[in-house]
Each structure stands twice: as structure tokens, then as C-alpha cells.
């Protein structure tokens, strides 16, 4: 074990003395987070002075009458098709989607919705949103209010079968029509800076791992590796040392990003400091495991640098570091969790939204398991690699 620690210590010394690498490690992520956070801020903030892009409205229609269907299909789905996409859910499913931040606004149309509108009684519809859902909730609210005001008038003019009571004032109607509920008072919205702090942090950690593995391959290409193998060092010692070094470097970078973004840009990483620390450890272990696996398979630094940079970009794009995850379909967001960075980013976002340590334990365990799995394959590969190599 001591031999592994000395291998890690040596790697750390080399990195610390490489001013270029040190700067890339610390300053670059903070700079990029600031640039991207500022550039793409509008996409995330829901600021009301910007153009609203089409969004999804979750609908649970329990209405026994026809007006619930009219509201969801005729109004939201057809007339507002440029702004709103309607998706139908079961009630529980809708709550879960909004709680998981996979949906921002939803409505539950009660079974007496038609009846109450036609009779002028208290209408039964619930607007369910994430806290501070911004203009999207306002749009849905306004549409329902307009609908509620129009329908009784139409009913009278068209002489519908049901007798209609005197219409209450529009203000009263809108007050009573909607029961607005913000899901989970502890769930908070994620701002652009928060999103990109996590997304860029995760991407830079991947890049740091690539850089670390690149030096490992360079070492393998040179006689130092041969000399290491002739010493008392075993393959397990070597890979463990490399992994420890990478973990320390990556953790340093991760905490610089977390603390730096909090101090410089006021980014909130959530209330669970233990959750952030544990997830960072878990992600670093999985990313380093993946890196060590790649390092044990690829023989030349040149090949690795090309594949490594391309691989990082692909992983970053698929994992949500390039474009916000919410613009992708749900299945894609779920599938992205098989990538170490995708899982880490989504877990960081959960933590930022108020998740606790216990809630992220499955993600942490998944991440560590992935790292150990990758490491084990790398070890097997490295110990069989040199048998056929020509001197």
C-alpha cells in the first residue's frame, strides 16, 4: 500500500510543478463557468422579459364532463400548440415528474370541473408547479382563467341544457378556480449558474482524468514503467497509486470549482454539504476508474489524446454539460445516467434542488460500483498486456 501512496505522491509533485497543468486545473473551469453561465443564463432563469420557448404542460384529466377535454385538447393542445405541448399523465406520475424537475407545470382537472363551471360553483382544478416556475405557470393560469370566464357565457348563449346560475365576478372565479400548489416546499429551482457550475465542473473533472491518464500512458511508453515493474511494485500497487493520484487531483479540482463558484458567483450547491462531498468522491472514483480502464487498453499517448479528447466531448454532450438536460426527452435524461458524468450532474442538480444525502445514496453507490468495475477490468488488462510485447 505504501508503494501505491508513493506513486500517487510522485504524480502529485509532477502536476504541482507543471504550471500549465496547474492553471488548467484550477483557473479554466471557473472562467468557463462564468462565461457559459452568463451566455446561457436566459435559458434557465425563466426571466420574464425573454422569449418563451415551447414548453410541456402535464395534464391529469379526471373530469366526468366535456370541458376538461375541451380545455386540454382544444385550448392547450390545438390553439396554443405553438407555445405548449400537452402530455397526459396519471396524477401520481405528474407529481413525480414535477418533483424530479422533469416537468415544470401541470394541471389536475377535477372530476367535477365541467359541472362546477356550468353551475358557477367553485371550480376544481389544481395547478401544480415547481417553485418559481416563472412565466410558464402564469401563462397556464391566465389561459384557465380566460377559459373559466368564457364558458359560462357560451353556455348561456348557446342555451345549453344545464341551467346556469349567475356568473360570479371574474376575479372571484379566478381566485376560486385554481388551487396552485408548488411541489415540495424544499425543492428549489436551479439557476443557470448553478446548472453550468455543475455541468462544467463535471466536464472538467473528466478532462482532468483524461490528462492524468495521458501521463500514465506516456509513462507506460517509456522505460520508467519497465523500471517500476522490475521493482517491488505490483500491477495492483501501480494502478492503485495511479488511481489515488487521480482522485486527489480530481477532488482538489472539484472542491476548487464548488468553493470557487460559491464564493465568486454565489452558486448554491444545496443544503447537503455531506451529499456534495460524498457524490464528488463517488463521481471521481467512477471517472478515474473509467480513465484507468482506458489507460490500460490504449498503448500510445498520441492515440489516447485523440480518443480521450473526443471521448470527453461526447461524454460531456450526452451527459448534459453542453446543453441543458431539460431540453432532451425523458428517456434520454434517464439513459444519460449510465455515464459517470451524466449520473453525477443529475445528482448535483438534485442536491441543488434540495435533495438530502439519503436521497442520493443509490446514485453514489452506482457511481462507486462503476468505478470499481472499470478498475478491475483495467487491472486484468494491464497484467496480461506485456506478455506479448517485443523489447
Amino acid at each position: 500500500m505504501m508503494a501505491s501512496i508513493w506513486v500517487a505522491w510522485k504524480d502529485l509533485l509532477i502536476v504541482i510543478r507543471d504550471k500549465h497543468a496547474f492553471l488548467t486545473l484550477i483557473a479554466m473551469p471557473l472562467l468557463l463557468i462564468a462565461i457559459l453561465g452568463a451566455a446561457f443564463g436566459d435559458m434557465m432563469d425563466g426571466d420574464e422579459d425573454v422569449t418563451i420557448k415551447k414548453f410541456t404542460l402535464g395534464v391529469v384529466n379526471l373530469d366526468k364532463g366535456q370541458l376538461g377535454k375541451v380545455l386540454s385538447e382544444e385550448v392547450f393542445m390545438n390553439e396554443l400548440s405553438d407555445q405548449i405541448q400537452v402530455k397526459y399523465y396519471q396524477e401520481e406520475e405528474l407529481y413525480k415528474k414535477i418533483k424530479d424537475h422533469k416537468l415544470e407545470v401541470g394541471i389536475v382537472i377535477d372530476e367535477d370541473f365541467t359541472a362546477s363551471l356550468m353551475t358557477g360553483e367553485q371550480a376544481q382544478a389544481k395547478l401544480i408547479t415547481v417553485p418559481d416556475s416563472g412565466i410558464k405557470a402564469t401563462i397556464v393560469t391566465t389561459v384557465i382563467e380566460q377559459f373559466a370566464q368564457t364558458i359560462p357565457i357560451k353556455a348561456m348563449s348557446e342555451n345549453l341544457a344545464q341551467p346556469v346560475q349567475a356568473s360570479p365576478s371574474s376575479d372571484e372565479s379566478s381566485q376560486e378556480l385554481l388551487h396552485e400548489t408548488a411541489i415540495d416546499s424544499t425543492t428549489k429551482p436551479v439557476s443557470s449558474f448553478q446548472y453550468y457550475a455543475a455541468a462544467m465542473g463535471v466536464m472538467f473533472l473528466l478532462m482532468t482524468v483524461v490528462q492524468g491518464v495521458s501521463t500514465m500512458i506516456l509513462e507506460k511508453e517509456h522505460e520508467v514503467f519497465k523500471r517500476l515493474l522490475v521493482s517491488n511494485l505490483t500491477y495492483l500497487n501501480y494502478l492503485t497509486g495511479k488511481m489515488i493520484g487521480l482522485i486527489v487531483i480530481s477532488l482538489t479540482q472539484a472542491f476548487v470549482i464548488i468553493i470557487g463558484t460559491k464564493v465568486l458567483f454565489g452558486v448554491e450547491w444545496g443544503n447537503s454539504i455531506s451529499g456534495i462531498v460524498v457524490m464528488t468522491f463517488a463521481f471521481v472514483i467512477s471517472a478515474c476508474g473509467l480513465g484507468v480502464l482506458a489507460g490500460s487498453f490504449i498503448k500510445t499517448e498520441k492515440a489516447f489524446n485523440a480518443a480521450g479528447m473526443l471521448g470527453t466531448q461526447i461524454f460531456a454532450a450526452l451527459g448534459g454539460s453542453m446543453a441543458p438536460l431539460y431540453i432532451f426527452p425523458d428517456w434520454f435524461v434517464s439513459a444519460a445516467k449510465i455515464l459517470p458524468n451524466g449520473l453525477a450532474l443529475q445528482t448535483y442538480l438534485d442536491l441543488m434542488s434540495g435533495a438530502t444525502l439519503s436521497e442520493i445514496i443509490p446514485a453514489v453507490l452506482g457511481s462507486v460500483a462503476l468505478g470499481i468495475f472499470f478498475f478491475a477490468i483495467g487491472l486484468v488488462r494491464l497484467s496480461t498486456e506485456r506478455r506479448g510485447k517485443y523489447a
Partner: protein
Amino acid sequence: MKILSIRELRKSFGNFEAVKGVSFSVEKGESFSLLGPNGAGKSTIINMMSGLYPPTLGSIEINGINVIKNPKQAQKMIGVVPQEIALYEALSAKENLKFWGRMYNLSGKELEKSVDEVLEIIGLTERAKDKIKTFSGGMKRRVNIGAAILHQPEMLIMDEPTVGIDPQSRNHILDTVKRLNDEGMTIIYTSHYMEEVEYLCERIGIIDHGELIALGTLRELREMIGDRSRVIVTMDKGYSNQVEMKNLLESVVTEKDILIKDHQLTVFHKEPQLILSDIIQLVTSNGKRITSVEIIEPNLESVFLHLTGRSLRD
């Protein structure tokens, strides 16, 4: 007492057979050299001896320990100086030596003492704190050797340790190796520089195309060529009928002692002064112009040339 015993060692890489049934042994405290041109198979043998990869066939024992079955146990007894510089450029000489010492489980005062002693041996105490990247090629080579002797191995394996360095550093390295051997360390030294091998080693194995083509002391190897000197005649680059020239020369020396390659004629003879004028006359009568004539005392180069028809540096 034997420290190294190699029997019928073979190594193939795909269809290419790099080592073809090599056998030899080395006594404790001996300095032994593997001499051969580049690509002869020396490094492959060294790597197998070091336990870096197993042979296709054959056995290697170091102090009675089977290197193939117990490489880590055998590696404790050896120090290996690789052909290239195997050091970390960003670290100082002392940091490098400390790191490599730790890789052999040295620690604390034992490590400090060992590093200081090695710095003294390689003559770099004054530059201990300087980074390797600021060193000359020769100084790097010295640290490269130092890193292999920190744990005081019984046998030091050196794979062409003087490639590409200045004469002063080379002399320092050779003196260091000689001193280590005098102090009882067994030396296995590979090189294609015959002068180094002649200076350092008591016994020599000559390797060519993966085969051990000669083995013995310097004296024994010289006797293989009858202790004969070489007369090297260099001719101008015009056309020459080599068969005709060889036939003419057979009136002076036997056919097996004549070697004609390109525009160079080599003749092996115990008393070259006696035949020199005859050779010059025969060559010029064949229409060739002589540009230089050289007489070389018997050495390892002569042995290699005689055995393979090629120069060590070909």
C-alpha cells in the same frame, strides 16, 4: 557459485523468433557481457531475465529462484539499468532516487543513507537538488544507474547504459561499474561497444540473430580467430571483380581469412606485416586504386566479424 543460470531460452513474437535457444550461466561476483549488434536479441534476453515477460521456452534462475514462477522474489536481488533514461524529469536527482528507493521498500534513515551514498558514487552530490531536466545526457545516465543500485542488489543488469553520451561521462560510468564489480556486485552488461566490454568484462557472450554464437573470456574469444590481426584495405568505388580478387589473394592467405564487402577488403593474419606488400600489389594489379590501409590488433570486433561476416555496428 552460480548467480544466474539460463537454459535453452527461447522467445517468439508471433512468427518472429527473437531468441533461439540461448544457454549460459554467470558466477557470483563475475562481470559478464552480452555483446551483439542492435536487434540481436540482447534486450529481449535482459527483459526475460528481469521478469518483465516470460520466455516462450526455457528456464531462468537467479540465485536458484525461478524467475518465471517467482518474478517478484527474483527481482529483489537484481537492479536493472534500462537502455533509455527511466527517470522523472520534473523531479530532482534526490527526489528521483528517493522515489526509486521507496519502490524497493527502503524508508527512513536507511533510504536517506542509501540515497546519499549513491549520489556520492555517481558523483552528483552537488547537483542532488537540481531537476533531472536540467542535466546533461551523461549526468542523466549516471542517475539512471544510481536508481538501480539503491537497494544494493546482488546482480546489476545494464542494458547499453552508455548510449549517446560524451566520453567523460562514459569513462565515469565505466569506472563506477568497475568499482561496483570490484566490491562484489555481479554485473551483466550488454553493449555493442566492444571497447567497453573488453574493459569491464571477464566473460563475454556474443549474440547475433537471437543465437549465442560464441562464449568465453576475451582471451578464449581471441583464440577463436587464432589471435590474428586484421588488414583492412579500402579501395576506390569503381567496378571490381570480387571473385577474381579473391582468387588472386588465395595465393597469399586461405579463403576463409578473406572478406570483401563493398569496397573494403579484410584479411585476417597473425603477422600482417609479412603479407601487406603482397596484398597491395595484388589489389593494384587487379586495376583497383587503394585509398587507405589499416592494421588492427585482434579484438572482439575481429571475432564478431570473423564469426558473422558483419561488423558489430552494421
